[in-house]
């Protein structure tokens, strides 16, 4: 490989995977640098998992190429496997075995002796606060515990590149925060992390660079700041006391928010508006509070009000000009 390729953790050129006539991954070109958390953001069915599985040597690409640390994922799969680890969307654990047995098994498969594997497993269980559950079958674990054990299994031998496929989907906020802490500790030690997520919030919290993908294609790539600037600073979400006042509220908002689009939510009491383009977000708060004052003056009673980052839906709206088709199930990024 060329000298330049050694600096990148992952390089893909025109990567394609098809299932029947559906192109799950449709020509992805990306260069992912080492030593950072790289976020791959997209709705369900965007092709994130397929993309990651090809890079982790689980799926064979139908077109294009992918190199991990300069090694081809098809021809040099074993060299790639020696340096990467995958925590899939569904826990890759043996449910019949206990937590400790799962880790000892992996330790032995990774070439540790019986004693060393046991020691390493015990240390991991302690670091991940699973010591108490060590001798229980994994099928009795909660979602958060499974996820922690799964990540522990992935870093049993510190990998150079860790794939985390939607690591917090389905977790409660506390478990999600724990996973975030773990990811920060991992990248802090020099491991490159490729993280897929459907939550803009999560990408924002963890990733240095983000690629947004939809229908198997990269539709935006850049730093967090660049991505956000392309979408606007944030959005206000309002719920009115009286649904009949919604058209009035819509007019007021359009006036005070300098003609930014106002969206009527499925809930007849609610509406959402994008606010300002100030990259730092300070302008957005001012605009939003002015809008609130105007609503009060127009005698429109507001039940709840929130100002937040744009949701993934809105990112897609801004990037593609139409809503993400499968974005319905995407949870609003945050309040």
């Amino acid at each position, binding site marked *: 490989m060329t000298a330049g390729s050694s600096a990148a953790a992952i390089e893909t050129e025109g990567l394609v995977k098809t299932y029947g006539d559906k192109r799950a991954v449709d020509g992805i070109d990306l260069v992912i640098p080492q030593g950072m958390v790289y976020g791959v953001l997209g709705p369900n069915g965007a092709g994130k998992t397929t993309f990651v599985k090809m890079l982790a040597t*689980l799926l064979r690409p139908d077109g294009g190429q992918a190199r991990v640390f300069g090694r081809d994922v098809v021809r040099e799969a074993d060299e790639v496997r020696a340096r990467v680890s995958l925590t899939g969307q569904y826990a890759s654990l043996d449910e019949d075995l206990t937590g400790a047995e799962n880790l000892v*098994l992996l330790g032995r498969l990774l070439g540790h002796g019986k004693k060393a594997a046991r020691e390493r497993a015990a240390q991991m269980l302690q670091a991940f606060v699973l010591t108490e559950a060590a001798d229980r079958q994994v099928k009795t674990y909660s979602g958060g515990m499974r996820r922690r054990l799964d990540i522990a299994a992935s870093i049993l031998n510190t990998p150079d590149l860790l794939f985390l496929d939607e690591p917090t989907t389905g977790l409660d906020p506390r478990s999600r925060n724990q996973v975030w802490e773990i990811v920060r500790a991992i990248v802090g030690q020099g491991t490159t992390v490729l993280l897929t997520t459907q939550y803009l919030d999560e990408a924002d919290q963890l990733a240095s660079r983000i690629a947004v993908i939809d229908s198997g294609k990269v539709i935006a790539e850049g730093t967090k700041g660049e991505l956000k600037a392309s979408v606007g600073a944030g959005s206000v979400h309002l719920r009115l006391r009286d649904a009949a006042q919604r058209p009035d509220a819509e007019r007021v908002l359009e006036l005070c928010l300098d003609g930014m689009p106002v969206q009527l939510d499925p809930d007849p009491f609610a509406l959402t508006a994008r606010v300002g383009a100030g990259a730092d977000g300070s302008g957005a708060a001012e605009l939003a509070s002015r809008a609130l004052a105007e609503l009060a003056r127009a005698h429109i009673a507001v039940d709840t009000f929130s100002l937040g980052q744009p949701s993934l839906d809105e990112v897609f709206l801004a990037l593609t000009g139409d809503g993400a088709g499968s974005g319905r199930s995407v949870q609003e990024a945050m309040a």
Partner: protein
Amino acid sequence: MSTATKTEDRSDGPAGVSTESLTALLVAPAGKRPRAGAAAASTAFGWRAMLKIKHVPEQLFDVTAMPIMFVLMFTYLFGGALAGSTEEYIQFLLPGILVMSIIMTTMYTGISINVDIAKGVFDRFKTLPIWRPAPMVGYLLGDMLRYTVAAAVILTVGLILGFRPDGGPVGVLAGVALLLVFSFAFSWVWTMFGLLLRTEKTVMGVSMMVIFPLSFLSNVFVDPKTMPGWLQAFVNNSPVTHLCEAVRGLMAGGRPSADIAWTLGWAGLLLLVFGPVTMRLYARR
């Protein structure tokens, strides 16, 4: 160290995961990483199979209760009619029923692989830098234990019912060993079906269609001389017949060299054909 004394997930605080201890663990050891060799990886997967038996002991039902049922059923059903008495018949039948029970049990390998591979754990195994067939070989090593249990159960029941092998312990053990070697090779047929077929039920159905004719159309129950010519042609060339004849011979204290050679030849052929096919399917799955 932080609060490691909590049992419920919800009870550990937001700072439950200790970042410092995690960071200490992540410092990669200097020098090259260890790698597991083919034997070490296969043994580790064999250990996994043992652990599964330990946690789900019900799965030993097919190698304990079933064979007992077989021995009792066929001894008393056919004994009087075929050999004049059950004591006479069991001398002939027991090695055969041993072969049949274990050959039938091999079928469950395909089913458990099919169930197992549908779960996420194989994704992890596949991303490990290990010898590719290790998970399959590990499975079969675990199964060897199950077959040994089955053989012990059948021989015990047989001895109680009056089975007196002239070959003594050495002959009996040699017979069992040959049976295990053949079973290991034959199991690759089932690993193939386990990977090829989509659901557990189809694996079961197809396996039954293969195993029933193969085990009944043999010399397990009766001497093939009474069968019509076309059937004799099949029965006399079936690997199960050769295996059964070899095991019977060994347990009776004889040296059935030809049948042993045929059995090992079949075992080698099955392994050479179905082993690579299994691995191709595994890589695609």
